[in-house]
């Protein structure tokens, strides 16, 4: 991508994404952490757009910001006495070292490998093609995913259901 707009957009969005993600780990207050997480998700959605993945970008906003961030907020608000602190446990240093090693390895591999870069331009209309693939070639995983979601819903409801819940207005 040599287009000036795309390059500028990439650097801005990458800075937002990584900066917000660092903030998520560093900030002390858990609610601030979630807000920064939302910013980071939005940055990733923007990066998807620079990669011409418009459908995935919109899905990212819809699911990550609209659903998962909200779920996390619910979990924080529903556990009031557990504290809103975002501090590290005793595994702080080993975790930092391991994460740095993993990041270093992956970045090294990314630059060391000679990828089979294609000359293809960005995708034109991903939504239709993804729909065709999902209901054609990947129909079975698609159905399994829906069963997985259903079982997750039922499981989540069963887990938080209070003991001896009443059966509605009787």
């Amino acid at each position, binding site marked *: 991508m040599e287009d000036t707009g795309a*390059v500028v957009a*990439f*650097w801005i969005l990458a800075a937002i994404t*990584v900066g917000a*993600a660092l903030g*998520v*780990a560093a900030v002390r207050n*858990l609610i601030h952490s979630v807000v920064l*997480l939302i910013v*980071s*998700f939005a940055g*990733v959605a923007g990066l*998807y757009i620079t*990669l011409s*993945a418009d459908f995935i970008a919109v*899905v*990212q906003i819809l*699911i990550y910001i609209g659903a*998962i961030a909200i*779920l*996390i907020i619910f*979990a*924080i608000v529903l*556990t009031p*006495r*557990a*504290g809103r*602190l*975002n*501090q590290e*446990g005793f595994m702080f240093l080993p*975790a*930092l070292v*391991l*994460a*740095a090693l993993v*990041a270093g390895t*992956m*970045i090294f591999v*990314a*630059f060391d490998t000679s*990828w*089979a*870069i*294609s000359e*293809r331009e*960005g*995708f034109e209309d*991903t939504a239709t*093609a*993804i729909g065709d*693939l*999902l209901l054609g070639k*990947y129909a079975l995983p698609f159905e399994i*995913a829906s069963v*997985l979601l259903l079982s*997750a819903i039922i499981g*989540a409801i069963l*887990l*938080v259901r209070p003991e001896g819940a009443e059966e509605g207005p009787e």
Partner: protein
Amino acid sequence: MDSVNLEHFLVVGAVLFAIGLYMTLAKRNFVGVLIGIELMFNGVNLTFISFSRFVESAEPLNGHIFVIFVITVAAAEAAVALALAVLLYNLRDTIDVDRMDLLKW
């Protein structure tokens, strides 16, 4: 600096993944751990999409399909894990993972 390639996106994905990994391993609050897992998902998804865009392939959209399934699983995982957090809180009044030591010797 004047052009953006696959490597740039891979670095962003790797950094996101590492931050998520660090949070998952180090945070004491269960919700913090979950946030870390979501960040890792995002790093992986970004990597998938950038490969899908840049790398030579017969069916380049397969990366997008994979990301859709990752997002589906992430949503299911978030719902169940947060239900677990609320359940743990109801049972033990804390969601500090360092104090979840019932099975410790």
